[in-house]
């Protein structure tokens, strides 16, 4: 069905396996089709993003750029749109990082709600060394790990080991038994209420760029939506039964 990735869905878990080392426009289009499915007709509560063959992703595929052709910014825009769509999916998003996770791969990892790394994982925002920019990781990374660390990772482009990524808070677990770690992570998410998860994530993502006065209006709007959904109504019903 897909050429650049593999998609499988088993009960609560949808798994997206990147099927090539580098991200090309075909992969962006197929990720978009996967998002269509996840938004429209998937009952999954968790989306797992992973690589294949001991590698998450090496980043953007430069083979699609031609030095004799005018540079095109719109492909980058399409990439940002797909990252933002993944980031807004009404599911919990978990990335499994085995081996190299560089450039665009690291950008994609950053939109996940949690990441699990194997011991041999190596995370690198290498774009600035290559003369361009790591997409909207420039916007997201400082929120995730703080401005000081983000400057070092994006401007000096070090390869970050699994253990360092764990201490930075870039990943939430390091394990070579990724399936066991995935189970633990999913358990930690607990009962995944899609609306609450999506609204909480949105408010958190907006937190650094919204002033308090606007943020509290946003929060009340989101909270009003949450407390009218089935999970919260069941919570108070249970509480009354006790």
């Amino acid at each position: 069905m897909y050429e650049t990735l593999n998609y499988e869905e088993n009960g609560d878990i949808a798994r997206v396996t990147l099927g090539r080392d580098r991200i090309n426009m075909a992969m962006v289009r197929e990720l978009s089709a996967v998002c269509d499915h996840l938004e429209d007709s998937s009952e999954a509560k968790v989306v797992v993003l992973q690589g294949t063959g001991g590698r998450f992703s090496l980043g953007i595929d430069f083979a699609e750029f031609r030095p004799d052709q005018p540079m095109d910014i719109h492909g980058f825009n399409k990439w940002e749109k797909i990252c933002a769509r993944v980031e807004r999916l009404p599911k919990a998003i978990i990335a499994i990082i085995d081996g190299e996770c560089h450039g665009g791969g690291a950008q994609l990892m950053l939109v996940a709600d949690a990441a699990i790394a194997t011991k041999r994982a190596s995370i690198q925002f290498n774009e600035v060394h290559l003369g361009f920019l790591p997409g909207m990781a420039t916007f997201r990374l400082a929120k995730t790990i703080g401005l000081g660390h983000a400057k070092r990772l994006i401007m000096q482009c070090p390869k970050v080991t699994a253990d360092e990524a764990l201490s930075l808070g870039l990943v939430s677990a390091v394990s070579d038994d990724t399936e066991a770690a995935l189970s633990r992570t999913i358990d930690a998410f607990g009962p995944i209420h899609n609306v609450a998860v999506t609204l909480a994530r949105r408010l958190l993502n907006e937190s650094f760029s919204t002033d308090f006065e606007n943020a509290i209006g946003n929060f009340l709007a989101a909270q009003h939506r949450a407390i009218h959904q089935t999970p919260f109504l069941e919570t108070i019903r249970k509480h009354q039964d006790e």
Partner: protein
Amino acid sequence: MNTPHARILAVGTANPPNRYSQQDILELFRVANPMVQSMFKASHIEGRHLVLPEPDENGVPHEDQESLLRKHRKWSLKLGEQAIEKALSETGLTTSDIDYLCCITSTGMMLPGLTAMFIKHLGFRVDCHRADLVGMGCNAGLNGLNPTANWCVANPGKNALMVCCEVNSALYIYDDTMGTGVVNSLFGDGCAAVLLRAEDPDDALVPRVVDFYSHIIPDAWGAMRYNWAPEHGKFSFYLDRDVPYVLGIHTETPVDGLLSRNGLKRRDIKHWIIHSGGKKVIDAIKYNIGITEHDVRHTVNVLRQYGNLGSGSFLFSYQRLMREGKVKPGDRGVMMTMGPGSTIETALLNW
């Protein structure tokens, strides 16, 4: 043969010349209640165009119901004339080319209505078909666009003009209560005229009005309403504090109803043209249908610059969207207005 859809050919807007910041109004009317003061300051409105009287030495305005009705009539004609002139000048038409005139207002009662007054004063033909929509509130622009667009489809090639004319400063009471404070900090005066015609598409970036979907919430019947205030001898507008949330939580139903019946998903909608009802209701819509701050940029900016302009607000946002120059052929948009009923009205546009 396919009947052509109605298309939005031009929009013109007008506001009275005097613009007041929220601070100006607090000072002019010597508003002392600190709760009301903070309500004005937290409204996310920078200024509003209003027709305000000179208050007495204590900051109290004295306008009885008769002078409010006179104000409504006078300024409806002034603003209507300007908005109509701006809409028509874009297309090279004059009022004598208009075959159907629909006028909307909720801020003053008159008989004969606005259509008759505009025909008398503004050069419309005496055989112009007309309809007046009175007292439907902020949502009424789409309640009017629906029959106007349908009239166009039934009369291809003929010109229809819809005029939303709200002189909100002709409907208020003045006291020291919070309820009055909320209402008096929110509404502004403004008029929007929109020209429609059913014709086959050409290359111009002119959207077709494809469909409408309504959703009324009878449980919230009294949430927004006019009350007669006998001690003032005037109408006052009542706005329940839960209105933003009640509207917000019901937004999904008409939006998804409109989209699914046209085989669309929310992600297919490039442009959201939403009534600038107030900051809280805009927030509630954002989080209930999952649209972004960028999607509501014009709605928020219209609120900031003008306040809530009632039925014509969404056309001010539409005008900004078109002037922004980012709309592309094939784009789809949803118009959404909310108001008393309580109700949510939606329309689907195809560029």
